[in-house]
């Protein structure tokens, strides 16, 4: 009898399983057909940092090296220069995607709102040179691609979350403090080097 009982139990469990799969069989697939369909990507998605420009199309970056120092993996390398208007500007600003952690620390460290995290993800290339983005590329991407600018302690208002390209990134007071903190720590580290 025990055998019969076990057999019955086993058979029932099998039928149950078949029932589950057949139910799924007749429900529609959940596949998002990239590339034919665009995937739903959160506006906060961290693709890679891009350089932002002001209304006049001029780069906001002042080559203060804050991002380069905050970057854990030395993915950012900057060559600064002094323009005729006595202002510092980046002559070269290279991002190495082969190292980037996409950790957002550079954006948080930037005191001039000159960096944003682009949601761009189509970064595959067929030669390693393509992994390194230079100043022009990043500036262009910063003008064309949607990006987000989340600083530490930021409250995400509806508008910012919905259209991060409009996010000013003016974080709350804590944001100021802790970004300073990051930079302070990094500065000390710089001395230690």
């Amino acid at each position: 009898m025990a055998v019969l009982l076990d057999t019955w139990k086993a058979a029932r469990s099998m039928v149950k399983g078949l029932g589950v799969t057949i139910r799924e069989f007749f429900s529609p697939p959940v596949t998002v057909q990239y590339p034919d369909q665009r995937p739903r990507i959160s506006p906060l998605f961290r693709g890679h940092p891009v350089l932002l420009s002001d209304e006049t199309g001029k780069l906001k970056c002042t080559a203060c090296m804050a991002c380069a120092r905050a970057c854990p993996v030395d993915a950012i390398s900057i060559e600064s220069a002094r323009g005729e208007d006595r202002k510092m500007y980046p002559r070269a600003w290279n991002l190495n995607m082969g190292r980037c952690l996409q950790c957002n620390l550079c954006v948080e460290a930037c005191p001039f709102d000159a960096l944003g995290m682009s949601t761009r993800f189509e970064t595959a290339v067929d030669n390693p040179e393509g992994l390194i983005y230079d100043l022009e590329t990043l500036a262009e991407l910063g003008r064309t691609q949607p990006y987000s600018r989340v600083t530490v302690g930021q409250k995400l208002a509806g508008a910012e979350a919905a259209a991060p390209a409009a996010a000013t990134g003016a974080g709350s007071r804590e944001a100021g403090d802790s970004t300073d903190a990051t930079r302070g720590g990094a500065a000390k580290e710089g001395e230690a080097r």
Partner: protein
Amino acid sequence: MSIVSSLNALVGSLPGFWSPLVSALIKVVLVLAFVFGNEIMLIWLERKVCGRFQRRKGPMYVGRPEGWLQSIPDVVKLLAKEDIIPARADRWLFVLAPMVIMVPAVALFVVIPFGQGWVPRDLNIGLLYLVALGSFTILSLFMAGWGSGNKWSTLGAMRAVAMLLGYEVPLALSLVGVAMVAGSLSLVDIVHAQERVWFVALQPLGFLVFLVAAAAELNRTPFDLAEAEQELVAGYQVEYSGMRWAMFFVAEYASLIAISAIAATCFFGGWLGPFASGPWWFLAKLYFFIFFFMWVRWTFPRIRIDHMMELGWKFLLPVALLNIVLTGIGLALWG
């Protein structure tokens, strides 16, 4: 039907010994066409069905809509793929195995009646022939596993043989009941014997045993012990690449068709239907069983080898014997 008769007439009109030869050739061509034609569809179908079970799309881009031509690039690619024979392998076994496995896979169809009079060769021992050939598959699996000279594949080969012992006997016994009721081993007679009622009604136990044993014969989950991907990487076919591997793949699907055909013939009345009997009924039943086996494959986890043995010897075998006894009694009373 008329096509067949006229064809037979035409062939029969040929002089002397030509007529059997030509008719045989024609039949061979037809059978091969049937098998490989279905293969191509099946491999695509399996991927689509699997996709649906998993809420995926499956192949989409080759042959819109729904990528129904997907198998063609696969085959062409495999044809042109580098053919590697490992240094450690036993060359002859390694090369022979894929060819050997093709033989039973195709030869099984010789005795399958596709419709009234649509049977390549109506052997009067058809059932016996099927069982004999079916177990033949294992030989090539063993050759492949052993010949590859790889430890995983050897394990796979061992499992294959162990399984053969496990399920081949119940499979044969489950068909004995059918033969008893039909009073013949010829598949055509068996189908004719089901004109009143399909044997699935007379042989429920036999059918269940057959179903399980057949699933095992197919080497598909939950019984894909011989190539268990997670355990033995790819089991007996680890070392095969390109066309040689493709032959295993093809053979697997050929036997899937064959087994489903046997099930349709022996238990579901072959080409017979409630109305308008004909090959289409056979095909419908065939694909129903194919779908069923896919359904099972994409639902269950893999059974363990020793549990498989227990299932075969301690459960299927007694049930099959019981079925025979009951059938005998039934025949004695009402036969």
